[in-house]
């Protein structure tokens, strides 16, 4: 990938973060729904960099979100985790390695793999965030419900984004 497409990635990140902070954080609908749509940028990032660099990008993206939500460390932990897992998950989900070129999109990996990939990582990310912010097993029921409801919204946004791009 050349630098213009990285610039595009960064532009997308800024756009998604603005949506996250100005729209999705403000809505707080239903009380149990806190979708963190900014993971879209991390999940859709092409796999061209070294794994280490991926992890660091995840850490920075998480820290930025933490600053906006008074939760220093929580988003960082979750983002680093999904950035670590996603390569292994991808090579597990897509058996024919030759089909996996660096891009992650509807066109590149197909709907089923994309759905599985998104759902697993979003559940992991949201689950860890809500568990860490509760910081106690006492609220575990609420945490699970919160994770499920928020993940539905986030996954829909990510799949919707991919569908729009595919068109």
């Amino acid at each position, binding site marked *: 990938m050349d630098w213009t497409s990285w610039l595009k990635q960064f532009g997308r990140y800024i756009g998604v973060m603005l949506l996250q*902070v100005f729209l999705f954080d403000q809505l707080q609908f239903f009380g149990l729904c806190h979708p963190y749509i900014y993971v879209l940028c991390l999940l859709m990032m092409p796999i061209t960099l070294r794994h280490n660099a991926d992890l660091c990008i995840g*850490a920075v993206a998480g820290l930025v979100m933490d600053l906006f939500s008074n939760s220093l460390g*929580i988003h960082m932990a979750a983002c*680093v985790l999904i950035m670590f897992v996603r390569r292994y998950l991808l090579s597990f989900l897509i058996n024919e390695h030759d089909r996996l070129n660096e891009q992650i999109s509807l066109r590149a990996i197909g709907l089923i793999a994309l759905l599985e990939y998104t759902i697993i990582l979003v559940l992991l990310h949201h689950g860890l965030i809500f568990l860490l*912010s*509760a910081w106690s097993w006492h609220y575990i029921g609420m945490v699970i419900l919160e994770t499920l409801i928020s993940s539905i919204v986030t996954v829909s946004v990510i799949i919707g984004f991919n569908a729009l791009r595919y068109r």
Partner: protein
Amino acid sequence: MRTLLKIVQRYSNFLVFLALEVAAFMLISRNNAYPRSSMFSTANSFIAWQYEQISAIGDYFSLQGQNEALSKENAELRNRLSELEAQLTGDSIRYKEGKVVQMTTKKLHNYLTINRGSRDGLVRGQGVINGDGVVGIVRTVGQKYSIVLPLINTHTNLSCRFAKNDYVGILQWDGKDCRFAQLTDVATHIDVQPGDTIVTSGLSSGFPGGIPVGIVENCSRKEGDSYYTIRIRLQVDFKRLRYIEVVQNMNMNELEELRNGLD
């Protein structure tokens, strides 16, 4: 040595992953109860400024209601002022008005960011109220902005008392509904009725006594339990909170010193 290097090289991804996670967890455990740094939180000038822009947009839609509330409060304040002027007791409490820049109401650990900071004389531990009653306690102070721990945060404990008979209890929040909190440590021999008013006890240096906190919604006791479970309807409507006042007790330092001297 060479084999060690090889191992490090081979597992470098995992080691970086581990290092970053450890760093994250160190940050979490440090900031567990509340954000400690005004730099790395919503009290950061740049971030708070952005939130200020958002709330400026929201302001347009609630102007009328806010204006009514403000003019009502103004009148009330003027009354109080004239009363105080008549007394001229040399009281040492000042009120600093401010605006809510950002807040959450639906999480377990809600915070609010206000546009007043150390340059306005805010320090940690000062009380925050609005026209209706108690909002919370100042926690992390930046230069221009501060973070307030509101009553609707599961870390908050506030000493309160019944207005009618001065019995003291501790107000806590269970993380469920931002309209209700719980009063604990009230023994069952005390007469508690729905509709009783709960006010600040004046035992903490942040608030003077007698500021409204809430009203008893219902109270129950389990068999064999010697304490009531009391549900309090909070006076402050956190969903519509926009303007606040910080209670600045000029004797706070002295009180704190006395208290530290006791330990």
